[in-house]
């Protein structure tokens, strides 16, 4: 039902960062063969070292890490390698974690229960420069850009989603794959990818104040 992994000429090179060896072994077993896991790391320092050494196409990054967490890894690596692409892969589905790592610069967020095939697909997308939204992340985004952020004072364009972007997010939150979103909205997959990337950009660039307020409001619920 999901799109078959697109044919890739050279295998994608991936560095896997997670502080639990057991989990790394599990993920490696699931995705090895489809991608090339060139390095593993278990904390912030070893992750930065490994990424700088191997220069992978995509970094699979845990959110909770000894030494400061996934956001620290992104910040440190982006200082020297601004083009490095991160896909957050976490057991946590708390809004603070999800939004935090995306705003730090990750290009997508998937939870650890994701199936191996879908994970490989997500890695491929991130390697191509696209964004990856899990249903949960799409839900957070809709939540964040609705209600509390409706009255954007700083930058109207940035702090709002267009109607089309909102529709795309809604469908992803409902569990649609990109292909299905495209079919539903009568647009091409390329257009879906464009919308998703622009939502990610807005999410990362929106005024910090508004999103912070959203996060703290949410915690009260």
């Amino acid at each position, binding site marked *: 039902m999901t799109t078959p992994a697109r044919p890739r000429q050279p295998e994608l090179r991936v560095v896997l960062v997670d502080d639990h060896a057991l989990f790394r072994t599990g993920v490696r077993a699931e995705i090895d063969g489809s991608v090339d896991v060139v390095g593993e790391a278990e904390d912030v320092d070893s992750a930065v070292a490994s990424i700088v050494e191997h220069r992978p196409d995509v970094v699979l990054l845990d959110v909770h890490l000894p030494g400061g967490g996934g956001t620290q890894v992104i910040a440190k690596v982006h200082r020297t390698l601004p083009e490095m692409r991160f896909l957050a892969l976490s057991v946590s589905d708390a809004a603070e974690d999800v939004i935090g790592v995306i705003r730090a610069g990750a290009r997508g967020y998937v939870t650890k229960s994701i199936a191996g095939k879908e994970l490989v697909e997500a890695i491929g997308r991130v390697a191509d420069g696209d964004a990856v939204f899990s249903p949960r992340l799409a*839900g957070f985004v*809709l939540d964040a850009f*609705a209600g509390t952020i409706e009255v954007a004072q700083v930058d109207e364009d940035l702090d709002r989603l267009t109607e089309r972007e909102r529709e795309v997010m809604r469908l992803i*939150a409902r*569990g649609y794959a990109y292909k299905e979103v495209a079919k539903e909205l009568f647009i091409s997959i390329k257009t879906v990818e464009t919308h998703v990337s622009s939502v990610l950009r807005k999410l990362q660039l929106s005024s910090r104040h508004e999103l912070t307020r959203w996060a703290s409001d949410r*915690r009260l*619920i």
Partner: protein
Amino acid sequence: MTSTAADAAGGYEYRRAYRPADSRMIGGVAEGLAAHFGVNVFWVRLAFVVATWFNGVGILAYGLLWWLLPIDPDTEDPDTPAGIRAATRRGLRTPSGRGPQALSDPVQTIALLALGLGVLLLTQAVGWGLGTSALIPVLVAVVGVALVWRQVDQTRWNRWVTQPTGWAAVARLSLGLALVSAAVIFAVGQRSGMDALLDVSAVLLIAVIGIALLVGPWIYRLTRELGAERTERARTQERADVAAHLHDSVLQTLAILQKNSDNPRMVATLARRQERELREWLYGSRRPPETTLRGALDAAASQVEDDHGVPVEVVGVGDLALNPHGEALVRAAGEAIVNAAKHSGAEAIDVYAEVGGDDVAVFVRDRGAGFDPDGVGTSEAGTKMGIRESIVARMERHGGTAEIRSAPGDGTEVRLSMPRHRLDEGEES
């Protein structure tokens, strides 16, 4: 009022009075007594104030009880998730507020104190009480003693020791001592003339320093030990919490998993359920209650995961409290989830709930076998009957709509929608 545990055990156990560890005005004595005797705290406070008029018996009694009554060991709400309780004990989060009466409490007590003070002054004026010359020193001394006493209250000790801003505690203690000293100096000065004041001050100062030197190290050591003991006890409790939970849930589940390792479906179901329970245990307070749309959908999804072994992911935007129409919406969604789990053969089910300005929508989607919604007389007739009755008809009865989109091989999506105003009905009443 009756001691249930003791009765059950067959013997009689004295029911002890405790002071609550939080939600208190001064020392929690009045509240502790009120809870013990089952009367309103107002009357206890009034009794203390009235007793104070008789040569300060009330204050004396209050002070004594403050000293004698132990802190309630079970102030913690047993319903709080263990992870949250452990985090609270470790100081990783702040305990929840005092509750709705928190605002009226201080007001009530201040009013009572003012009343008591007024009556006290009145008795002075009439000439029954202490001499005017002694009254003001006594009042000042009482405030000073209260300040000192408050510092020595055992529940404060832990914070006193651990708080990096120890100077605040020292300042309060010094202020209290200074007030007491001032009261004594004032009293002596009024009786024996100002000449004696200097001598008395010197003597007092020397006495205070002497006492501080004598008792200071002892108090310091005592507080240190007490703090250490409390920390240790908290750690032990926390470890016990974790151990108990791990034993009851994780270990048991792991044991079952080992025995059933050849049954992948069961392994997945158990792992999924364990994950959910662990999350709930650790962060339970964040879960919306089942009286809200999100909470109820979560509960319905959990039920299906348990019964059918299919993971259900619930994503929500916004939330609201449920009225009967909302409950119908949740039941229809629950039915759709069950149908998807039973008949679609999908590996996972996605549920999305969105509370919009005009309407509230719930989508239940699977990528399973799907069926032809227009097909008649197929083997799925029974299922379709269920859909029509429990989903479509139910939604329509409550003013909503249900749409089922499905095609063989393409999965199924059930779209439920209800106007917002129906879900807000009855909220104000």
